[in-house]
C-alpha cells in the first residue's frame, strides 16, 4: 500500500461516524441498511471480482445465518453471545459444502449451481414450516446489547453496523492484498498458467468461496438484528441479483466498488420507489446500462470519463 492510502478510508469512516448527528432517524436507518448491503456486496465481490466466479446464490448465506441466529434465539431461547458465533460457524460450514459442490464447475456451470443450491435453500425455507415457520417468518427477535450498549436505538445501531462493516471491509481488503489474494487474482486471470505453476486452483477458489460465505453470514447477522424479523424471501434470487448488481455497478475487483454499488442500489430502491412507480423497470435499465457502458462499474467508469476532461490523469 502506498504511504497515505489509509487516509481516504479514514476520512470516509469519520464522515460516516458523524452522520447520525445531523441526519434524521429515517436516514440513519437507511444508512444502516446501506452498511448491511455493503458488507454483503463486498463478500460477493470476493467471488465475482477477485476470484472471477459469478454467483447468483449468495443470498442463501445471508439467509441461513439470519435464520440460524433467529431460530436459536426464538426456539431455544439462547442469547446473542451464543447465537452469533453459532450462526457464523454453521453458515461457514454450509459454505464449505456448497463451495465443494458449486466448484465442480466454473463459469456458467458455477452460476447455475449456485442458483440451484440457493433455490433449494429458499424452497426449504418456505416449505419446512415446522422448522422455519414458513411464510410467517420468525418474529419477536431482539438486537444484541454488547456490553450494555442499547442497539435498539437507531443511532447506536448505525454505529454498531459501521464498526462491524468497517472491520469486515478492512479484513476483506487485507485478504485480497495478501499473497493469497494475489494468487486468487491469478486464478481469475490466468487459471491455466497458475495451475501449471503448481498452484491448486480449485483449493484457492474454494477458500475464497468459504471466506465469502463467512462475510455474507456476517451481513446476515447485521440484517436480522436490524429487521428483528426473518422471512424466506430474503433467500430469493432477487436478493442475490441485487447484490450482484451492487458489485457490478460499483466496480468488481475493487474494494470501494461494492460499497458504492450498495449505496446506489439501496438508495435507488428506497428513494426511486417513492417517486417513480415503475422503479423496477428503472432498476432493470440501470443494470443494462451499467453492464454495457460501464462494464467495470461506476467507479472505474467515472474515472474513465473524467479522464477526458483532466489533463493530469496518472
Amino acid at each position, binding site marked *: 500500500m502506498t504511504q497515505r492510502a489509509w487516509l481516504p478510508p479514514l476520512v470516509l469512516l469519520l464522515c460516516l461516524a458523524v452522520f447520525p448527528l445531523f441526519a434524521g432517524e429515517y436516514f440513519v436507518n437507511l444508512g444502516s441498511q446501506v452498511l448491511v448491503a455493503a458488507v454483503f456486496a463486498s463478500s460477493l465481490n470476493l467471488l465475482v471480482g477477485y476470484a472471477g466466479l*459469478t454467483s447468483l446464490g449468495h443470498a442463501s448465506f445471508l439467509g441461513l445465518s439470519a435464520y440460524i441466529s433467529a431460530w436459536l434465539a426464538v426456539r431455544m431461547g439462547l442469547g446473542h453471545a451464543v447465537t452469533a458465533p453459532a450462526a457464523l460457524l454453521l453458515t461457514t460450514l454450509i459454505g464449505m459444502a456448497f463451495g465443494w*459442490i*458449486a466448484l*465442480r*464447475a*466454473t*463459469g*456458467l*456451470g*458455477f*452460476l*447455475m*449451481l449456485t*442458483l*440451484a*443450491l440457493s*433455490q*433449494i435453500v*429458499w*424452497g*426449504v425455507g*418456505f*416449505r*419446512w414450516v415446522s422448522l422455519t415457520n414458513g411464510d410467517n417468518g420468525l418474529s419477536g427477535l431482539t438486537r444484541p446489547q454488547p456490553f450494555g450498549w442499547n442497539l435498539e436505538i437507531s443511532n447506536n445501531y448505525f454505529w454498531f453496523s459501521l464498526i462491524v462493516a468497517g472491520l469486515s471491509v478492512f479484513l476483506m481488503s487485507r485478504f485480497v492484498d495478501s499473497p493469497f489474494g494475489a494468487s486468487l487474482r491469478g486464478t481469475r486471470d490466468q487459471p491455466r498458467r497458475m495451475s501449471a505453476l503448481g498452484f491448486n486452483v480449485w483449493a484457492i477458489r474454494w477458500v475464497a468461496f468459504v471466506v465469502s460465505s463467512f462475510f455474507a453470514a456476517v451481513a446476515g447477522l447485521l440484517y436480522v438484528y436490524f429487521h428483528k424479523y426473518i422471512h424466506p424471501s430474503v433467500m430469493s*434470487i432477487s436478493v442475490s*441479483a441485487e447484490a*450482484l*448488481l451492487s458489485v*457490478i455497478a460499483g466496480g468488481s475487483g475493487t474494494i470501494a466498488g461494492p460499497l458504492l454499488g450498495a449505496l446506489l442500489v439501496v438508495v435507488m430502491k428506497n428513494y426511486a420507489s417513492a417517486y417513480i412507480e*415503475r422503479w*423496477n*423497470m428503472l*432498476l*432493470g*435499465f*440501470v*443494470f*443494462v446500462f451499467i*453492464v*454495457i457502458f460501464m*462494464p467495470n462499474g461506476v467507479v472505474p467508469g467515472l474515472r474513465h470519463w473524467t479522464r477526458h476532461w483532466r489533463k493530469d490523469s496518472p
Partner: protein
Amino acid sequence: MQIWVIQTLNSLSLGGLLFMLSSGFALIFGLMRIANLTHGALFMLGAYVAATVVRAGYGLALAALAAAVAIAIVGGLIERLILRRLTGNPQGQVLATLGLSFVAADFCLMVWGGDPIPINTPAMFRTPLQLLGLSFPTYRLFVLAVSIVSAAALYLLIERTRLGAMIRAGVDDMQMARAVGIPASRLFTTVFCLGAGLAGLGGAIGGPIFNAYPGLDGEMLPLALIVVILGGVGSLVGTFVASFVIGFVYTFGIALAPDLAYVILFLPMVVVIAFRPTGLFGRAIT
C-alpha cells in the same frame, strides 16, 4: 390405479409444456452460449400477447402465431441492440438479460395490470376426454401433441435445412464455422429470434393452463434452466427427453413429498452439473 394413470398423463402434458418452454432457451444457450435470463419474461409476454388477441375475439391459433412473431421481434431487438454490444463478455450477457427481465416484467405489469388474465381454452378442447372411466383435460393432450410436433419440426429444421446445418456447425465450433464463411452475426440474430419466438409460442400455448399473470416469468425460468441443464447443452434431443423426465419427477414428486417440492426440482440439476456436466445428452457447458 386410476391415480397413476392420471398422474402419468399429467407428467406427459407437463413435459410437453416444459419442452415448449425450454426449446427456445436451449437453442440460444446451445449456439450462442448465452443463458438468456429474459426467457421467462418472454414466455410471460407471449402469454399476455396471446391473451389480448384472444380477448379481442380471435382464436388461439392466431393468438399463438401473433405471440410467436411479436416475441421473435422483441428477441431480435434485444440481440441487436443489447447483446451484440457484449460479445465476448458472457457474464455481461447474462447480467444484461437479467436486467432486461426486470424491465420486461414491469412492462407487462404496466400494460396489463396486476390481475391474472385468463386465456380461454378453445371450444373444441373444453370437454374432458373420457378414458377408462377417468376424465382428463383434452387441452393438455393437445399441448402434448403440439410439443411433439414442435420437436419434430425443430429436429427437421436443425438436421435437414441449411440454417440447421449452420446452427449445428456453430454449436460444434463457432470459430471454425466463421472460418468457413458462415455469417455468424446474421445467424445469431436469426437464432435469437427463433428462440424468443419459441418462448412466445410456448407462453401462448401454455396460456389456457397457466394464464397470464405477474410472476409467471419467475416461475417458468428456473424450470427452463433445469430442463436444459439436465438435457445437456447443445442437444435438442436432450432438451426433449429432459422435459419429460422433469415432468415426471415434478408431478410424482409433488404428489408423494410435497414439502420437498423445490428440492426435488433442483436436485437433478445440481447432481447433473456437479457430477455429469454434459447432462444426459450434451456437451459440457464450461
